[in-house]
């Protein structure tokens, strides 16, 4: 497997799968273009995540990220939960393949959106139609390196074309 044992464990036996009816907060990210959609449902009691569930359409990495994220978040106060980053999730999973990093970028984002949704509603804001967040634009740069968003090869900074798949990179650079 290209995945770590922990990833495979969460993928095969995902924790906290499902829907919370009338959830206090809901967050949705991703889109099926990248093959990846994630919905997080929160039950909040006393500013604490009493329950959390997810639904995911996505690859092994995306499912494992969702599962691990819910485990990390469950029981935490909202303040604590806000500090959970995508990096935390990836680390808890003992690493993700480089070309799957964008899947792991979704997990924490969905959680933060769900928390924001809860806070917005509490503040009496009209709940806007849930708009999925795309994550692809963030994928170009990982650490101090650039990767072609089309074929994932390393490209030099400033390059106007990916030399491998010949895609246009003028937007990125």
């Amino acid at each position, binding site marked *: 497997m290209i995945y770590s044992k922990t990833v495979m464990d969460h993928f095969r036996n995902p924790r906290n*799968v499902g829907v919370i009816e009338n959830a206090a907060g809901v967050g949705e990210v991703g889109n099926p273009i990248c*093959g990846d959609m*994630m919905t997080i449902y929160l039950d909040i009691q006393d500013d604490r995540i009493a329950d959390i569930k997810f639904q*995911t*359409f996505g*690859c*092994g990495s995306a*499912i494992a990220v969702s599962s691990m994220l819910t485990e990390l978040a469950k029981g935490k106060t909202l303040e604590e939960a806000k500090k959970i980053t995508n990096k935390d999730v990836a680390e808890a999973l003992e690493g993700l393949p480089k070309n*799957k990093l964008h899947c792991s970028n979704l997990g924490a984002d969905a959680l933060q959106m769900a928390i924001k949704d809860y806070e917005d509603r509490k503040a009496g804001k009209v709940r806007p139609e849930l708009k999925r967040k795309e994550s692809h634009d963030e*994928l170009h740069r990982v650490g101090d390196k650039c990767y072609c968003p089309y074929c994932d090869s390393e490209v030099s900074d400033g390059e106007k074309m990916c030399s491998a798949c010949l895609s246009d990179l003028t937007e990125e650079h």
Partner: protein
Amino acid sequence: MSNIHLDHISVSPLLPEVQEAMIEVIRDFKGNPSSQNVAGELAAEKLEKARQSVADLINCDPREVVFVSGGTESINMAVKGVARANVEKGKHIVTSNIEHNAVNRSVKRLMHLGWKATSVAVNEKGRVAPDEVAKAIREDTILVSIMHSNNEIGTLQPIDEIAKITKEKKVLLHTDAVDSVGVIPFDVQQVGADLVSFASNPYYGPTGVGALYIRKGSRIWPIIDGGVQEHNRRAGTENLIGIVGMGVAAELAKRDMDRRVAHLKKLKALLVKELPNYIDEYYVNGDIDTSLPNLVSVSVKYVEGESLMLMLEDAGYTVSTRSACATGSLRASHVLMSIGLDHADAQGTLVITPGIDNTEEDILGFLKALRDITKALRDISPLYKN
């Protein structure tokens, strides 16, 4: 746990006869086919024997066969070599929108260097209309490159009809036949293409070896320059071990062709017939009537392909997927998009490619596993409302 291999499009095991022939070369490796000595001549004989077997498989003159390092190099050589050799005539190429990346990226590379290309769209079964090809050919067209069979959906193209057009318009015709040659009957005289790219693994020979058929008189430049090997058309000391393996595989493919095709057709028919008894809400992609006998492409709605594939692997069945996640690319397959699938459905596409050693039990076992796993994944999918 036992593993049932239903992913022959990714890799096929080597036939015992192929193994033995390769091992014999390995054990007694001592001649360079270009050397003028006894060992060299024996090596050259092995090389030419393999060339004859490969030529017999597609029914051509052995001098029209150039050995290369695989399907990809063969395609690069055909596309770039023809483009380079014919600049005086023009710089326009016609291709289709479901080609393998070896063709796509070769054409893209040329476009970056000033060539122009027209990509002909396929219908929802993945077929190219010869008329469309005819319309796309211009004064300055020097090459038409349309694949013979598609590696994701199996659809076969009417290359013979396209050949009539290119012949009349005096344009060279190349076909990527990597998944056809050795798998289904392929007679280059009937097919009519001027250049045919093919490999060895699809018919149980080694990977990393292939050939380009070049019809006598076709203008083409080498893309790998150096020594005098392959009649100055492809330089470099030969991969004799691989080439001998390819030769034996070709010989057996020709000998057993009818039996193999009949067996694979039976397995495919069973799979397609039984599918609705195991899952609902799916499509079978491509052209069922005119397609490879060893390939079934199924899009399972509401689930993603990589997770489907991984769970099937866990259950003992190896298949492949065309979901973006599995290939490390961020895009769904251009082939599935071209036949009109939406992104979510394309993401849930499995490519099931049985081989000559698979049985009906394998197919039925696979279907059971597919049923259970589809249910499990749909249960966690936000797209599935039941």
